[in-house]
């Protein structure tokens, strides 16, 4: 049942187009967008984490709305480009446990970023006062989780058991 669904998905015009469009604006550009989304979300999140880990006190009102918008835009780009990559090679991803680990780490990373943003920059403004140990722990966790998401993302290319669904038939 699942295999038939994957075979059908792989044969849809959209899936074939993403895989086989003979231009740099096809699959390679989607890969680039996925990396760009990673930079806007994970990398900026890590940048904030690194900065927070060195802060003891936030004394002035920060206006972080713009940066937070960049991060959420990155998440949107990542989600759409990730979906396109999944449509191109559904069996490759969905039969690989590393893919699910990556998804879990991304969800954890987004949760950590959201938690830090809510606690330290509610509505884009900083909470004046000491940076708590709990916030620093979230920042540390966020760095580890994003590193894990990046590593599992790269390892996806090396750990698949099948490329196409027909190999499962």
């Amino acid at each position, binding site marked *: 049942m699942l295999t038939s669904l994957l075979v059908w998905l792989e044969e849809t015009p959209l899936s074939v187009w993403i895989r086989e469009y003979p231009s740099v604006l096809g699959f*390679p550009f989607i890969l680039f967008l996925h990396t760009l989304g990673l930079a806007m979300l994970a*990398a900026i999140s890590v940048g904030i984490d*690194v900065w927070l880990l060195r802060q003891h006190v936030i004394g002035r009102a920060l206006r972080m709305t713009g940066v937070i918008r*960049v991060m959420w835009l990155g998440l949107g780009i990542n989600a759409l480009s990730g979906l396109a990559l999944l449509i191109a090679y559904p069996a490759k991803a969905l039969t690989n446990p590393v893919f699910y680990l990556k998804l879990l780490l991304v969800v954890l990373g987004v949760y950590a970023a959201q938690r830090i943003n809510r606690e330290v920059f509610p509505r884009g403004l900083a909470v004046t006062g000491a940076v708590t140990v709990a916030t620093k722990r979230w920042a540390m966790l966020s760095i580890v989780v994003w590193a894990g998401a*990046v590593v599992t993302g790269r390892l996806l*290319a090396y750990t698949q058991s099948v490329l196409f669904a027909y190999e499962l038939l």
Partner: protein
Amino acid sequence: MNLPDVIHWLTHTPVNSIVMGYRWVWPISESLHFCGLAMMVGTVGLFDLRLLGLAKGIAPAALHYSLRVGIAGFAISVITGSLFIFGQPDQYFYNDAFKLKVVALTLLGINVLAFYTLEARRVLRLGPEDEAPVRAKWIAAISLSLLTLIMLFGRMLTFYRP
């Protein structure tokens, strides 16, 4: 020594044997390459965004300290990137995307030099609420654009593989 000689030399080094001889060296290096990229883009990008007027309320000097992490990330990316070149030099030296990536990296280096020569002293004295000088904003915008191009050309390497 011409290019084929350089490629021949690289493919006969012990580093090439290690990179190509062990299955896990390339995937681990790629993972570290991307982690290094994230460290660099995260810290440099956040600093650039501050200069462009986002993240107002943080003194640029406070974010400048984080650039040490970015430099470490850049070093990781250079080391792992060199391993790829030692592993499959012909895949890089004859690849237009690689040439463009090297050009973008060089321009990024010049941009960094321009920042430290022309603007760093003024920018690092700015307070949390101060606006960055226009020239510093241009340098930040160029930096972000070049970082994006470096990612773009990096991703195009496979497409332009000879």
